[in-house]
């Protein structure tokens, strides 16, 4: 086995290279599924917003499929859905315009895979976000989490005049610290 390359921090100055117009928009006007906004803040150990983090998401389309050969149903995946998005956190935090993913078998509930990078993080942190309108304990990963902490992975659904918004904050440290996975 070749030894893996070590990680280094993304630093504070990545935006001009990694964020482009539309990086945080996963849909176009032909994408199938319920349009949602997923937004929130990254918070540090002082509960202060981190305004120079990078958040990446990866998720299934509304039918629970991925446009990737590892998915046996990839040929049926929505060609108008990107699946991958990036957002910075300056201003009001991160914000993604996407669709509610479909559940990916065998799990009966949907979720989004999330990675956080920031100045002050020598290596990224991996987490997941689930949705408040499902019984997430039916998901095998979620069901095995510490019951006192699993709420940190649940985004709250808000039906606003402009559309459906899921609110979810990522707490890097301290009370309510988000569950991070060893991936």
């Amino acid at each position, binding site marked *: *086995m*070749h*030894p*893996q*390359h*070590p*990680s*280094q*921090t*993304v*630093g*504070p*100055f*990545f935006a*001009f*290279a*990694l964020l482009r117009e539309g990086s945080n928009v996963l849909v176009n006007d032909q994408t199938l599924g319920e349009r949602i906004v997923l937004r929130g803040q990254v918070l*540090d*150990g*002082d509960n202060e917003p*981190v305004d*120079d983090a990078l958040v*990446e998401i*990866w998720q*299934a389309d509304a039918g629970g499929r*991925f446009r*990737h*050969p*590892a*998915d*046996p149903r*990839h040929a049926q995946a929505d060609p108008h859905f*990107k*699946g*991958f998005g990036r957002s910075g956190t300056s201003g009001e935090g991160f914000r993604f315009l996407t669709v509610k993913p479909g559940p*990916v*078998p065998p*799990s009966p509930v949907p979720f989004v*895979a999330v*990675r956080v*990078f*920031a*100045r*002050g*993080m*020598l*290596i990224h*942190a991996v987490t997941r976000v689930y949705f408040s309108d499902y019984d997430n304990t039916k998901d*095998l*990963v979620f069901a095995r*989490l510490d019951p006192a902490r699993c709420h940190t992975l649940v985004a709250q659904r808000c039906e606003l005049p402009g559309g459906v918004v899921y609110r979810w904050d990522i707490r*890097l*440290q*301290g009370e309510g*610290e988000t*569950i*991070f*996975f*060893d*991936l």
Partner: protein
Amino acid sequence: MSESGHKGVLDWSIQPPYLYAPYVATVRRAPHHPLVPLAASLTELTGPIYGEGDIGPLDHDLTKNAAKNGEPLGERIIVTGRVLDQSGLGVPGVLVEIWQANAAGRYIHKNDQHEAPLDPNFVGAGRTLTDAKGFYRFITIKPGAYPWKNHFNAWRPAHIHFSLIGRNFSERLVTQMYFPGDPLLAYDPIYQGIPDTKARARLIASLDLETTQPEWALGYRFDIVLAGYDRTYFEPGGR
């Protein structure tokens, strides 16, 4: 770092810890709870796939991709290398993105207030895809060192930031490339945050005369071994 059970792809004898107090910004941003083991699902075994259509013809050439009225100032260099998986096979189709300061040690980012000149012909961002054997190549300008506020008289060694997106969600790396013989490496808490000295040394590119183009540009070689779920997890679908 995980408790037991499912083995993650990251080797924590090589990877830096979240908390490394000499790098002051880690103190309030490091998670304190242990990482939780994760049984990979299809979500982690898939990821975005990039193709030639995602890359512009000058995206890999930072000396040209932002030129307005001439060439950027500084020492022109070629940076090339191979992206491998842990079994030693080249990884094709990896999106490699780089960003850096200019020759004077100044980033174009609005929050960089270092009193050094911007270069009207240089932005300092590039991207490319690895070829069928895993090779990538950039042409750029050697970045300058610059001061930062981590501690009194702190200076970052010259570096190029790298971001790699591989074949699935697990194959993801953000790192930095340094230059051989840089005396600032000994004082840099970001570089020193890698616990293992052999692993740390792999962050340093090597001067490569085969890559060097005579009378034109020095060449540096920087190979990258990308951790991730083995391709056997999803080989049946082919690619």
